[in-house]
């Protein structure tokens, strides 16, 4: 069972990375316009008009 000594902290550490990523996304305003983000992904403004 000694493997748990580093497996459990490893699992918690991976979770922490996810938490930090979420907090960073929140801070950078990615959750301020949830409805808009859903529509912006469909826009073709980055494609050259022919």
């Amino acid at each position, binding site marked *: 069972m000694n493997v748990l000594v580093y497996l*459990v902290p490893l699992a918690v550490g991976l979770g922490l990375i996810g*938490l930090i990523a979420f907090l960073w996304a929140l801070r950078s305003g990615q959750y301020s*316009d*949830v*409805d*808009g983000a859903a529509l912006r992904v469909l*826009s073709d403004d980055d494609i050259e008009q022919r």
Partner: protein
Amino acid sequence: MSEVLDLSHYAKPAADGTCGLDLAVEGVHCGACINRIEGAVKKLPGVTDARLNFTNRRLHVAWANGALKPGQILATLEGIGYRGHPFVPLRAEQEEAAEARRLTRYLAVAGFAAMNIMLLSVSLWSGTDMTPETRDFFHWASALIALPAAAYAGQPFFKSAWRALKARSLNMDVPITVGVTLALTMSLVETANHAASAYFDSAIMLLFFLLVGRTLEHAMRRKTRAMAGNLAALKADTAHRFLGDELVSVPVTALQAGDRLLVKPGERIPADGVVAGGSSEIDESVITGETAPRAIASGAQVYAGSMNYSGALTLRVTAAGEGALIDEIERLLEKAASAKARALRLADRASRIYAPVVHLTAALTAAGWLLAGASLHDAIVTAIAVLIITCPCALALAIPAVQVVASGALFRAGVILNAGDAVERLAEADTVVFDKTGTLTLPEPRVVNAAAVDPDLLQMAARLALSSRHPLAVALSREAVSRKPFEGAVEEPGQGVRAVIAGVEARLGSAQFCGLGNAAHTPGASLIAFSYGAQSAAIAIAQKLRPDAVEVIEALRALGLDLRLLSGDRAEAVTPVADALGIAQAQGGLKPADKIAIIEALKAQGRRVLMVGDGLNDAPSLAAAHVSLSPISATDLTQAQADAVFLGERLGPVYDAVRIARRARRLMKQNLWFAALYNAVAVPVAIAGLVTPLIAALAMSASSITVTLNALRARYQGMRS
């Protein structure tokens, strides 16, 4: 005379040499709108950033200072079919945005901790052949995650509990704080003593569930607040201010006492003031409920919102809250507010019973076990298990969850809540007092004898009316199907408009102007005459009932509500409306103080009064009533007093609001009873000392999820789609 629109009041210079402007944009429907708007605005010279927030329909534009006039942005938007309304973000809104981010952070941390501790706990529950060393290791790992997470994510509860205790009162956060703190302390002590069970999971899950509820409640409130802010920006008018001899168009919010304004015929008076020049007739129905116009001349006091009928006025703006009527209203408002006993909300009442009962039970449990010969350690552990199992989770979610769902349903029905506890108070109403003008009737006058006029002639008259700014013509023009004015229409000041349509002259205006004799007069209505060659018609314009007023009044009566009509308008104007709606108890010619006196008398009889009104004269009555609603067309001061505002031309939202509120209150009570029942079952088990961490965790989740699901039943589809 070309006027410049001066928006410098709204443009905010930033530190990096740019200037920023926030606009509420009307007409945004789909994803394509985002690109079109941002694309067009970014093409303007000097614009550094343009970002449309689709969630709250707001556009933020930044540009290099001095590179362009903010008016150009509005013109650009108008050019592609959208209307932008500048606004200053409210301080309250900014604070709420910060609070929302904070709550989401707490929620994320609590969620992370709850998931990881659960992972460890599930192993503990299922690992029957686990060595004591491994168990201790899992407990320590849980403690290491739980303690910092609780200290961080529990802040909103700890702070609120501390505030309540400092004010010598109890709220739901007090038992939550006591429960979480004791559970964590006990678990830590037990872990240090190599004991078999610890309750880290329950404590953190409790915080997580509660934070979910709080975050949702807050998000809902923010959504309604943003919507209300946009509506306010849409309503904000501009005024013509004299700058020397020139006229500059400025937003009403930028006006200051002493400014001189020009008010053209057909415009609303933008601010309270004294007439400095000119004479006219004004319609003060928004202020007093009186529908007959009043003649005014130099020196007269006028109030914002009145409609200027016939002549151009020069106005000197007086400080806000100055003037005889406003003074009277303010004085009555103060009195009404101080006389109003704050109704105790369901949640407060529940927590006042809950906290002492639970803490007493826990203390008695400890004492009982000690008397029965158990060790001090066992007695305390059992007492804390009682606290954990009676966790106020279900109780603390019971009401907020319903509140969130109900305010969502109200929002969809076109009712925007101003006050958080309005739902509960709306449900208690047993008497409804209506104002007449602008509440039961539409805020603007309409054609009332459309059936008596040849439809083709009426359409022609309505289209011709588009070319005039006279209030009667504006009212008539609402009937026009085609919004295209006739070419070559000429307005004869004080008489009417004429145009040549298909080779025949058409005239719209006074009876003499159109060559009509005195037509039969409809009481309470103003006549506008129309002639087209040999054909002619007299069109009656008057206050008209809201389109669904009759059915809504009927439906409200069917709900068992006692309906009254109190109006500031003349009794002759009130009676026909009361008769049409079948309201037996109607009174006219009331002053604001009279309305309050009647409401106070009703309250003295033990009635809960719902006041629905829009006029400035209704503001004190709205404040005095148990709960109040006002249409979006109401004056600002009145809206500020109302507990909720309803949108649109229909009266239906009033009915929907009562129905949704009653349903919500029923669900709140059900949830409270459910939480009580759950405790009645769980507490004996805990007192007996049979609770394990697994049972505690299951009971907590099950009860929280049940009340939340029950709350979802508050989603109510409106009376009609």
